[in-house]
């Protein structure tokens, strides 16, 4: 093995290696650079652990959402409905726990189950009726948003069981609320599935070459079905964390996570494992965007700049990544 490795490395020009290494860590470098800039501008308010622990906790739902997106994306399907699923899940918690006094444990299980049902409905139309995933999930987004408004009478429901709030933001490890560690745990699990299990290989081949996968004996439809259900469950989990972070169920603000999470999914595919949707990259991208937005907000820059930052960062990063890869065809999309 050592012999083969050394011959393989010799076969490749050294410059390529460095270029590839830089590509893998480029986003991390830019992130550190961003922190340095904001730190220099606001050494007191920005560069303190409290600020970062807030960023880490409050963007945990977005991180989970980005993970929810990359699972079906790897299998070749878009799931736009994750934002609405997040909202549905947190609204369910509010309605069932606060208004109907169901125990919080049962409510969380029901919320996750609702996410699975959403995934199954999406999968039904995408796989069995062969409707493009973009269309189906755009439709279910609107559908769920309506249902949430009906369920909640379009009002924010406060007073969710304190156990949930405590479990999400009550305790801290290294000064960072638990919320972050839930997202981190999800990253580790997904990273394991993607890279260290045959299932991860199947997911990848189904996304990159459906016919190839089919002719190699992979149950393509079942893999896609599973990916969409996983996406729904993860999005519901994001909804739980969101409800915990807020301590209430907000029927409107959940959808705001959708675009940053999608941006992070694609941005994350340019880093750590460039060219693949990968959980590590997605989470780095989420917190990179979060840092930028928080820093800009603290500088007192008007709100519209954050949207420009989100979109600009995405387009710029994907473009730079494509340019460094030269002639190689894009792996994404």
């Amino acid at each position: 093995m050592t012999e083969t490795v050394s011959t393989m490395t010799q076969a490749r020009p050294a410059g390529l290696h460095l270029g590839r290494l830089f590509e893998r860590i480029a986003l991390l470098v830019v992130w550190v650079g961003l922190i340095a800039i904001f730190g220099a501008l606001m050494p007191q308010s920005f560069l303190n652990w409290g600020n970062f622990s807030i960023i880490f906790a409050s963007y945990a739902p977005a991180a989970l959402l980005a993970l929810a997106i990359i699972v079906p994306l790897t299998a070749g399907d878009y799931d736009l409905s994750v934002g609405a699923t997040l909202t549905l899940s947190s609204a369910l918690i509010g309605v069932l726990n606060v208004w109907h006094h169901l125990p919080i444990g049962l409510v969380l299980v029901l919320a996750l189950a609702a996410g699975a049902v959403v995934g199954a409905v999406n999968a039904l139309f995408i796989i069995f009726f062969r409707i493009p995933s973009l269309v189906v999930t755009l439709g279910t987004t609107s559908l769920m948003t309506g249902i949430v408004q009906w369920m909640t009478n379009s009002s924010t429901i406060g007073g969710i069981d304190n156990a949930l709030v405590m479990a999400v933001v009550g305790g801290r490890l290294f000064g960072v609320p638990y919320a972050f560690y839930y997202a981190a745990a999800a990253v580790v699990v997904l990273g394991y599935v993607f890279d260290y299990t045959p299932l991860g290989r199947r997911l990848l081949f189904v996304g990159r070459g459906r016919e190839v996968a089919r002719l190699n004996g992979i149950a393509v439809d079942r893999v896609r079905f599973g990916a969409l259900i996983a996406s729904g469950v993860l999005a519901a989990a994001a909804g739980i964390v969101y409800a915990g972070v807020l301590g209430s169920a907000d029927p409107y603000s959940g959808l705001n996570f959708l675009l940053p999470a999608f941006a992070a999914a694609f941005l994350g595919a340019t880093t750590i494992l460039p060219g693949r949707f990968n959980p590590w990259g997605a989470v780095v991208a989420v917190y990179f965007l979060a840092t930028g937005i928080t820093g800009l907000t603290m500088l007192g820059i008007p709100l519209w700049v954050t949207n420009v930052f989100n979109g600009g960062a995405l387009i710029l990063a994907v473009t730079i990544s494509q340019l460094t890869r030269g002639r190689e065809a894009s792996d994404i999309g």
Partner: protein
Amino acid sequence: MSDVPSAIGRVAEPGAPRALPVLDVADIAKTFGGAKALRGVSFSVAPGEVHGLLGKNGSGKSTLVKILAGFHAPDHGGRLAFNGEMVDLPLKPGDFRRLGMSFVHQNLGLVPSLTVLENLRFAHLTTARSGYIDWRAERAAAREALGRFGLSIDTAERVDRLSPVERALLAIVRAFEEIRVACAATGKPGLVLLDEPTPFLPREGVEKLFGLIRSIAATGSSVIFISHDIDEVMTITDRITVLRDGALAGALETAKATHEEVVEMIVGRRIARLGTPGHQAAVAKPAFLRVSGVAGGALAATDLVVGKGEILGVTGLIGSGYEELPYLIFGARPCRAGALDFVDGAHVPLAAMSPKRALDLGLALLPGDRQGASGVDSLPIVDNMFLPDVDRFFRFGLLNRRAMVREAFALGTRYEVRPNDPAMKLSALSGGNAQKVLIARWMNRNPRLLLLDEPTQGVDVGTRVQIFAALRAAAAAGMSVLCASSDAEQLAEICDRVLIFARGRVCAEITGPDLTKDGIAEACYASIDLTGRTAPAAPALAS
């Protein structure tokens, strides 16, 4: 050799028609990196003539068509005249339209999800100068174009709802429409080139198509008709030009030529007519798999037996259905009927077959479409190699990446993959090396039956030799191989036995001394003749 006076100074035969040829090419040659695809071909097409262009696979027909379409630049020294005017070579893409030529390729070039109107008026609709589309006028123009040939196709219908025959007719009408206006303006005839438009059409469809071709010729324009089907060519054409090995094999006047003469000219020597098949020749090797009544796509119910350790070739002319066989047996395409009986007693109805099931039964399929169906270019070699058996590397909850790479490297060495770096993407390899990776994938599993579709398409000569050697070695060790290929040379080299298909049925079996490149090519042409005369009750091979 030409019955038509030439603009390029060839002397016309006495008594020949005086009209200026529509197309006159002389000394067209084309070399691809040392290999001569065309060696100075000359022929001419008279106005109002239906001209057959014939030749085996690799005879240079498609190269010639691509030169006319401006896709390839011919070697220096060739000449081309259109309606008596010399045209500068090489043609630029699109030049043919300006000259008054149009093409109908085998895939027809229609957009299935658009309407007949949109397809028919495509060029006009997308380039209209006015910036406004007068749909009423467009519809009228489309109806007129179809009506000119007595076709009643609804202009609002989507093309994918048309029958195959209607689609072919539509494509030909469109090709004629493209040149009609130009021709009317100049008063000179145009040329429509039909490249294998018929292989997938039923008999009645071919008749309709011929009616259309005759109508076009009646307007004074010419048609070049390319087909493998000699009966069809004999029926529709006025004259025939035959290419063989890149050179002109001869030109014939259809009315004075016999079927045998044409075949002889295509194949290059007199061929013995095949005896009536129907007796199953003894399979030298013990049977491994009996395939009975397999039917799907263009393939009619077919029986065949694959011997253990046998390399069985299946071939035929385009559209004869042989190319479906590997996919049907593997369960990759829907089967109408049929069953597999393995020597160990397993009976599998093909309706219940799926790729997963096939793999479990020890079958393997290497599809012809390497990038679309066989391997994923954007993923590493190692993942492509072990796609069907990643589970083998999953131990103690972890995918053993190191073991995968180690084994992929060893496999790459054995199959001489260059460069042998399992972490590289498949796209980094040449076509031949990528094919080695994909063959290694299947061979490594030791399948009982390996199904191949055009295994050496787009593969360099050196790799071909390696692939053949690997196949022979595996067959000697007891693996059975079924290889579908249009390449007679390849089949002659590796197969123990070759089945010839025509019109969806097995019509001949070649073994022993006849199993040569020429023998297979001959059988292909003789076969179409056989089934053509005896259809629809052409005898299938077994039982």
